[in-house]
């Protein structure tokens, strides 16, 4: 794999991630939500803070799809965000940041520069 200029943070082992759900990763002062969408064999990372009421909660949200768009629903008031683009799919909450994820030798890495 081609190394980009991104800083890759070794977040956890694949088996530490929650299948079809999220975990929260500490990245310096920041919190990143890491999602292992096992059904689709996809990994996503977004900011952990929900922009609606600024709750550190997205990693604890339920993930799923609407018409094939992978998304996470915030556990607080069920605002939905696209895992791909970070765009809010319900109402006008601002978009969330998304980060690149890669897997090497069973370790999950998150690029700490947002996409």
């Amino acid at each position, binding site marked *: 794999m081609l190394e980009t200029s991104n800083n890759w943070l070794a977040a956890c082992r694949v088996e530490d991630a929650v299948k079809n759900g999220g975990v929260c990763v500490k990245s310096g002062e920041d*919190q990143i939500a890491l999602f292992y969408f096992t059904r689709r064999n996809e990994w996503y990372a977004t900011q952990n803070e929900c922009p609606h009421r600024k709750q550190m909660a997205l990693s604890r949200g339920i993930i799923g799809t609407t018409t094939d768009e992978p998304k996470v629903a915030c556990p607080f008031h069920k605002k*939905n965000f696209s895992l791909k683009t970070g765009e809010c799919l319900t109402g006008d909450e601002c978009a969330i940041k998304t980060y690149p994820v890669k897997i090497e030798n069973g370790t999950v890495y998150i690029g700490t520069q947002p996409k």
Partner: protein
Amino acid sequence: MREIQIIVIGNGMVGYKFCEKLRSKSDKFNLIVFGEEPRRAYDRVHLSEYFNGKTADDLSLSTTDWYKEHNITLYLNRPITSISREEKLVFDAEGHSYRFDYLVFATGSAAFVPNIPGIEKEGVFVYRTIEDLDLISEYAKRATTASVIGGGLLGLEAAKAIIDLGIEQTSIIEFAPRLMPRQIDAAGSDMLKAKLAELGLQIYLNKNTTAIEGNTGITGLKFSDDSNLSTDMLVISAGIKPRDELAKACGIEVGPRGGIIVNEKMQTNDPAVFAIGECALYDGMIYGLIAPGYEMAEILASNLCEGNKEFHGFDMSTKLKLIGIDVASFGDHFIDEPDCRTIIFENKHKGTYKRINISNDGKYLLGGILVGDATAYNLLLQTANNKIVLPADPEELILGSRGADQESSSAGITGLPDTALICSCEGVSKGDICNSIGDGTCENIDDVKTCTKAGTGCGGCIPMIKDLVNYTLKAQGKYIKNVICEHFNYSRQELYDLIHIHNLKSYDEVLDTLGKDDGCEVCKPLVSSLLASLWNEMILKKGNDAAQDSNDRFLANIQKGGSYSVVPRVPGGEITPEKLIVIGEVAKKYNLYTKITGGQRIDMFGAHLNDLPIIWEELIAAGFESGHAYGKGLRTVKSCVGSTWCRFGLHDSVSFAIKIEERYRGIRAPHKFKSAVSGCIRECAEAQSKDFGIIATEKGWNLYVCGNGGSKPQHALLLAMDLDSATCIKYIDRFLMFYIRTADPLTRTATWLNKMEGGIDYLRNVIINDSLGMAGQWEMELESLVKSYKCEWKEAVENPAIRKRFSHFVNAPEEKDPTIEFVDMRGQKRTAEWKSV
């Protein structure tokens, strides 16, 4: 031949409706629209929803391309500033001119701003446009107190919106001696005032504001009685002022108190110039509501297309759309005796006031006022408007039928004539709606909204449309299916049976076998709940943790800020001193806020996710178990002290409550359910407000079912009398299984019964006479749930794989979430407010 050109000034609700109506009838006119606001016409009626998450786009009445597709030229941000009627030209601010053959004023109105000294100060707002709301919410961030001048329909709505913005200290100032002076009478106003006070609103009546104080920004109000009120911001909602300035300047006749004078064809004194909506004055009256505005748009559009319609005034019945408080008035609501007879029903305890005015011969309903409970509004309005002859006891209309024989609201609908106007905003009749379903065009309420437009105005008629849809579908013998979401094409009830038959045990198996794609936040918790109801296995096992609702996933309620609450079960509310001490010690050790709950037990708030397992370990060691305060299952069984101590007690209600609580604990259902046992008819345990409640009698127990506290309280109904303990439990078993199997998702037992055809009599027949022949199976199923009960917190702390999930950071499991903040209050902690967004 040259095309006839129509110019519309104003792209508000009525201006837009006019374009829509005109285009649906003809495309022969050239149509040009000028709007002063920066955006396309939007739903002003639902403006307040802008504060609840709706965007300007959501509120917009049309799509971006709509005007283009309909060949309409729309200029936004371009007010018309003058008109030459002789040359038939209008001019914009830059001096461009546009020719018209017909000119339509749809300029609406502006907020009326009284001339109070200091009104120009910063922090004084009106409540009319999206821009106004942007300004208000921006300013509100710096404010802790707010006031609204005007206690009418709009003022109350604005005040509620400001409270929702987080300003808890909000006051309403009204000049008149009562609230909503145009809609309700003094007694209704008193009741409303009490209700608003519960929301936290301060109400000042008979107050005449004489000055707005402060240097550059407002700091307070001064009144004519020399009193003061300090406030950080002010919203003026003192009425409306028709935008007639442009018409007046070009010599169109306007009324003495404003408004462009029109005849029944919406025509002004210049036959080529028209006015519709809130700027039009018909027969001395401005109609400040959307329905008459739409009617005017229809009349004008129709007449321009060679129709022949006339406006003859309009019904001004209204319903306030404040969340949580019902207020409505309809028909002739202020008419008094001796011109009519009034029936008044007032219940201070429940906060309801209802008044109906009936004709002196007792035959017809003329009008009325409803405060606190307006469920009957639509039906009463229909009864008055359609001159339906009243029943012998018209008081039943406002008292509602009581007792066992509850008639469902759809019963009234069948009695309406086909011509009954259901949606007055869009002028859609019962016949229109039923036909759209009858001929197969529409299958559900969304279809009906799209093709008849009913329900797309103020939305007040939606409950009635729902009933009509269901009623018509049923009449056709069609089965109404509530599918769960895009991933499962089944109702909850069907899915329950299918999961059972296929013996499925995890969400993924269910999705693979019965669903499609990847699931979502709707079907995941629902399926998880079904699995729990069916098999009663530890809910976090089999990879099912991420398919649980957040509270179930961490076996605790998530709180504002991200901490959790801990609620151990205290069966029947009975607790030993030793256990009380343990709760105290644990709460102290982990710095938890403690409170006695409304369910006779103790809640400890403010636990970090990381601390949950260790807290529970200590509680379990002392003999506690999960209280399932987070789950859709049995919450509490409250008890009164009963015959062991009370001088009136007939049986040992505490022991029976503990028995009941221990029997049904841990069982998952479509929604939470609660119970209580009282030792005598004085009912200190409030059993009649529970999903099932038990009251001791001389001979045994009376069993009540389907009560509800909460947002829409409802008394439980008597299912059976004088039961012995074993029979009582048997009936509860059957009742619970029937509920678990057949209720819609997130439906409490009360709502479930309300929707059940045949009501309590049917339910009694199923439970007691076993009319479905299911009783034996249900009893067995329930018994197996009881047998498989385990405390899920015990399992969680003992299972390392599950326990590991209770940490905030996957890469720093020892560290707690550093963003959680608490502040001090009365010697305990509480969670910090939402951070401003």
